């Protein structure tokens, strides 16, 4: 994979990773798509009927108690679109899911440790465009950590 393509992939995964979080200000917690759920999609990448099977798991999904699925159905639609669009490039998709899960874990770390420094540094070092980095504030990260 050439560096430009990888950078583009990385940017897409950061954009999506931030969408996997929704702040619940009343309870002071975040609802988040678990990496376990994302792994359900990731393991389909090596299957011949990948897109069909992905549609099945979306339509048959019973959401967990936090109802993140109901709050953000666009998230899984976007995953399906990406899988359909890159159906012929399974290597790209493997890296896509790997980096998506990495990114979600890093955002979770920032929330759990009440410290955005590693997240901010990683975004900077990875040359993630500013318009994607500002999603940190959109999901309330800075405000939560300032309070």
């Amino acid at each position, binding site marked *: *994979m050439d560096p430009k393509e990888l*950078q583009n992939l990385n940017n897409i995964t950061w954009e999506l990773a931030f969408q996997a979080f929704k702040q619940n200000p009343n309870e002071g917690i975040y609802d988040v798509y678990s990496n376990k759920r994302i792994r359900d999609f990731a393991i389909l990448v090596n299957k011949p009927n990948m897109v069909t099977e992905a549609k099945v798991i979306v339509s048959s999904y019973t959401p967990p108690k936090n109802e993140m699925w109901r709050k953000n159905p666009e998230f899984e639609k976007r995953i399906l679109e990406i899988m359909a669009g890159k159906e012929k490039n399974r290597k790209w998709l493997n890296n896509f899911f790997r980096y998506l899960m990495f990114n979600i*874990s*890093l955002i979770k770390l920032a929330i759990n440790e009440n410290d955005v*420094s590693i997240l901010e540094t990683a975004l900077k070092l990875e040359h993630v465009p500013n318009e994607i980095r500002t999603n940190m504030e959109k999901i309330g990260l800075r405000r939560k950590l300032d309070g």
Partner: protein
Amino acid sequence: MDKSEMEIILSYTYQLVVKTRLKYKSRDKKGEPFEIESRTKIKNLSMALRHFENPKASFLHFIKYACYFLPRSKMHKRNNDFLGPLLDAIQTIENNAKEDSDYSHEVELLDYLIGYTTWTLDALVAIFNTEKEKDVEKAVRKMVETEYKIIGKEVPESIITSIMNWYKKAKNTKQWR
């Protein structure tokens, strides 16, 4: 690697070394009481540098790999961990890259950093396990001075201090029964 790059690598090596978990158990007749926890996690970082053929892609992958796996290790401590100085090192290496760099040299520098960190850990643990306590600082100082002599620099005293503090903290903490 030129001398200024060697100085950067050496400096970050010692910053990283003292962020690892040095464990001490009471000396028994056969065992070596000092050991580094999660050493394999550090050694495995080199694999991330070879994930892609293109060095610039591998450079990005290394950052992501480190940010994902290091916080999962026993080394990770809030506000005082291995990952912070590692990211600083990456930033410094990238800031010094030439504008038209294909990142093969930068990947090489990271490889040296990881390698030197692993070797230095082994060397220091060998000193701690073999030298009498009163001779540890002298042995550490001799090792670090030899390295800095090669690049024609004086050893920053802060390096010796940080290593000795790291050693004493482990010695004074009863971690294993």
